[in-house]
């Protein structure tokens, strides 16, 4: 059979806190937040860093939750995410979900724009969006991705894989130092 111990050992070595593939529900997210929170608690992370990690996890996963779409090949809205410890005590959050292909260009433009901004520019950009936009029916205001960029302090790594005429698979990788 498949060597599960090998998989376990690899995940252990890579310091993976949590890996998931499937349907993302509110109940699942509640459990994930608890797991991440207790892990950060156990690691005796400093308050500010702990809060930053936690908030990026929340925003990344809610970003998936609000924007995930159902591809033609599936009966649901599957997604994937992985939360791991990185070098120098950093935290990595990787997410992947199907999105409407119509969102690809605007999202690319926004991420590229944010990737050239300084911390202060991102703060001003966030404030401008906060005071000028309305919440969508899904509960988002496009603020999540800005907050992720702000709290991360690193450039956002992303890619789109075109799946069909309607859908693309959006992958986002965030490192928080």
């Amino acid at each position, binding site marked *: 059979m498949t060597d599960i111990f090998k998989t376990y050992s690899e995940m252990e070595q890579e310091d993976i806190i949590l890996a998931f593939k499937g349907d993302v529900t509110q109940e699942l997210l*509640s459990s994930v*937040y608890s797991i991440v929170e207790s892990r950060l608690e156990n690691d005796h992370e400093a308050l500010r860093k702990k809060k930053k990690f936690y*908030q990026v996890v929340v925003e990344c996963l809610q970003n998936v939750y609000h924007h995930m779409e159902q591809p033609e090949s599936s009966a649901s809205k599957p997604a994937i995410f992985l939360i791991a410890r990185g070098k120098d005590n950093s935290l990595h959050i990787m997410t992947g979900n199907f999105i409407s292909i119509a969102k690809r260009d605007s999202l690319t433009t926004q991420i590229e724009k944010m990737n050239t901004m300084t911390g202060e520019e991102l703060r001003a950009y966030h404030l401008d969006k906060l005071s000028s*936009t309305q*919440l969508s029916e899904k509960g988002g205001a496009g603020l*999540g991705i800005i907050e992720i960029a702000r709290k991360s302090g690193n450039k956002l790594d992303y890619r789109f894989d075109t799946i069909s005429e309607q859908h693309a698979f959006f992958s986002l990788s965030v490192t928080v130092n």
Partner: protein
Amino acid sequence: MNQLNLEGTNKTPTISFHAETGTLEIKGRSIPENSVEFYAPLFLWIDAYVAQPKGDTRVLVQLEYFNTSSSKCLLDIFRKLEPLHQSAKSKVTVSWLYEEEDEDMMEAGDDYQTIVKLPFTVAKVIL
């Protein structure tokens, strides 16, 4: 109209709104996926209160965490109170409290202070 009390959970804040004294407190964490749905009852309460306000209205926000959709709802709460304050029917004040070392929460308070047209103080919690 008397009071609205919502017990906090690990995703939602404790909310107490005493219409009798004109005090609204929002404490804890606010990270629900469905912020609009969560804050809807409070919005209704604020609308009703604004029609019959007390001379002084005090809003106290002390959050440990809040997500971006809640950040929008918080702004909507402040926006609902701006006309009340401008009408001089009630003097509205907002206190934004943050824990020691929580600079991000202090920064968030400072940001609201710049865009909200209400007397707005940002202060460290004294334990």
